[in-house]
């Protein structure tokens, strides 16, 4: 995933101005960036968790194809068209619409989610250390650490990642660029070796093996929600929701020469969120095939069984190279609260908090829910930007209301955000809507609320 989070190396140029034509980038830059950023450590967790959710072969393969296609369309039709018209960062665009105070709140929410995600990536890397040092690691569904070795390994990895993110961000970023083609090759190897060990000898038999050995469907594992086609489709579509429909990638696509470059996201979706998830899922199926009692989702041992030391190095690299920018971004988000604070110290502190969360495998074991929650929390601001840009002018209302009126907070946007989260939470808690689906109605709730509240507020302002 980026997961998720991902794209999105911090670009510090043109933070408060329109990107000039001389700085625009071609399609190739975007293909490379997306292809690289979606082969993350967390992909190694997501694939197995699909299997634990009792998904069937058809539901997984077709759900991923449709969901990833919808994600690509979201980048292409939602994010990139606005990005290439305004050519501003998300934060500056939000500040114009919502005011500085609301952007600060958005930053805090984003920073907290980034911190937990970085924690999950540290957890993934620490599972590789467990293979080397042979300490007991958390089992499936464990929410608490189960050995001193695990705690030490996670904290050591977390401290190292944090220090590097704070001090040597650029070095790891360069290493990440270099590692990506190799990581993609190792992920493909995971899948091929896993399939052979599961008994596949001819590609023609793939579908039969997929249905009867790998993704057999049936009941999910205890504590897991049963995944159907719709779960897979919505998960694949919304796992990067904060970036496409949530508009975080305005910052990325403001450099694109053409708005259709959003289609470059297909490289990330179909390498990272299709091939890599499937490969990781195959490795977990192999583990269950060899020992049905071993349900632990531990990327280190999974990768080691298939590809040996190269597999372990891939787990460490995938976790490290994605934890690094994630910690950096979390640090930036928190630093915006106190701009005079040292970025080094804030990033280091953020990393240490992430390391402590990584000791408890709660987020990692509940990664599917966490990713859906992230999308739900940040999506409303994307809906606000969309409506502010396309709808308000057509209704005779003023766009960029905070900038136009000099307000530090636009309550129409703020209330639309808070009320949407309240409605979505109520739908999940009391109406039985699962968190994977709630962001779709949530988007419309925000859009309607923002239009209605803008009418109210702007009328009041005119009076």
């Amino acid at each position, binding site marked *: 995933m980026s997961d998720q989070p991902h794209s999105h190396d911090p670009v510090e140029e043109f933070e408060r101005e329109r990107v000039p034509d001389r700085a625009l980038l071609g399609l190739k830059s975007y293909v490379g960036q997306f292809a690289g950023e979606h082969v993350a450590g967390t992909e190694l967790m997501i694939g197995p968790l699909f299997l634990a959710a009792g998904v069937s072969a058809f539901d997984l393969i077709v759900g991923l194809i449709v969901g990833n296609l919808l994600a690509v369309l979201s980048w292409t039709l939602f994010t990139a068209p606005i990005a290439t018209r305004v050519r501003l960062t998300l934060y500056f665009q939000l500040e114009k619409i919502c005011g500085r105070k609301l952007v600060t709140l958005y930053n805090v929410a984003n920073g907290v989610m980034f911190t937990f995600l970085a924690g999950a990536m540290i957890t993934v890397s620490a599972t590789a250390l467990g293979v080397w040092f042979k300490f007991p690691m958390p089992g499936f569904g464990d929410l608490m650490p189960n050995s001193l070795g695990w705690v030490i390994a996670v904290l050591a990895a977390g401290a190292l990642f944090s220090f590097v993110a704070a001090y040597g961000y650029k070095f790891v970023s360069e290493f990440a660029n270099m590692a990506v083609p190799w990581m993609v090759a190792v992920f493909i190897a995971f899948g091929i*070796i896993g399939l052979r060990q599961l008994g596949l000898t001819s590609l023609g038999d793939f579908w039969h093996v997929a249905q009867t050995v790998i993704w057999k469907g049936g009941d999910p594992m205890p504590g897991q929600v049963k995944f159907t086609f719709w779960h897979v489709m919505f998960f694949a579509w919304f796992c990067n929701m904060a970036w496409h429909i949530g508009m975080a990638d305005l910052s990325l696509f403001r450099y694109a020469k053409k708005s259709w470059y959003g289609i470059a996201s297909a490289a990330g979706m179909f390498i990272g969120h299709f091939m890599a998830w499937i490969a990781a899922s195959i490795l977990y199926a192999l583990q269950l095939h060899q020992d049905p009692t071993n349900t632990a989702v531990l990327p280190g041992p999974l990768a080691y069984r298939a590809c040996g030391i*190269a597999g372990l190095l891939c787990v460490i690299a995938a976790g490290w190279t994605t934890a690094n920018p994630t910690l950096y971004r979390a640090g930036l988000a928190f630093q915006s609260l106190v701009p005079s604070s040292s970025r080094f110290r804030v990033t280091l502190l953020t990393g240490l908090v992430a390391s402590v969360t990584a000791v408890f495998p709660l987020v990692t074991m509940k990664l599917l829910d966490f990713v859906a929650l992230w999308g739900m929390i940040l999506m409303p601001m994307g809906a606000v930007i969309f409506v502010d840009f396309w709808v308000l002018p057509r209704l005779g209302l003023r766009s960029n209301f905070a900038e136009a009126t000099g307000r530090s907070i636009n309550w129409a946007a703020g209330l639309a955000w808070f009320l949407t989260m309240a409605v979505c939470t109520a739908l999940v808690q009391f109406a039985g809507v699962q968190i994977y689906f709630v962001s779709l109605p949530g988007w419309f709730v925000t859009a309607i609320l923002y239009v209605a509240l803008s009418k109210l507020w702007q009328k009041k302002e005119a009076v």
Partner: protein
Amino acid sequence: MKRIAEILSWIALAVTLAPACLFFVDKLDLAQAQAWMLVATVLWFIATPFWMEHKAS
């Protein structure tokens, strides 16, 4: 020098993937495939820094 390093990188990438394919068609056993992948990994990380563009973003 850069050109040679680039060629070595692409060979390393091919050798990262090839053992998995050879294992699939029973031409290598798993231990051999894993050993070749490790060799290819080392080669990739030695050769690639010589030519790959350094960009932080």
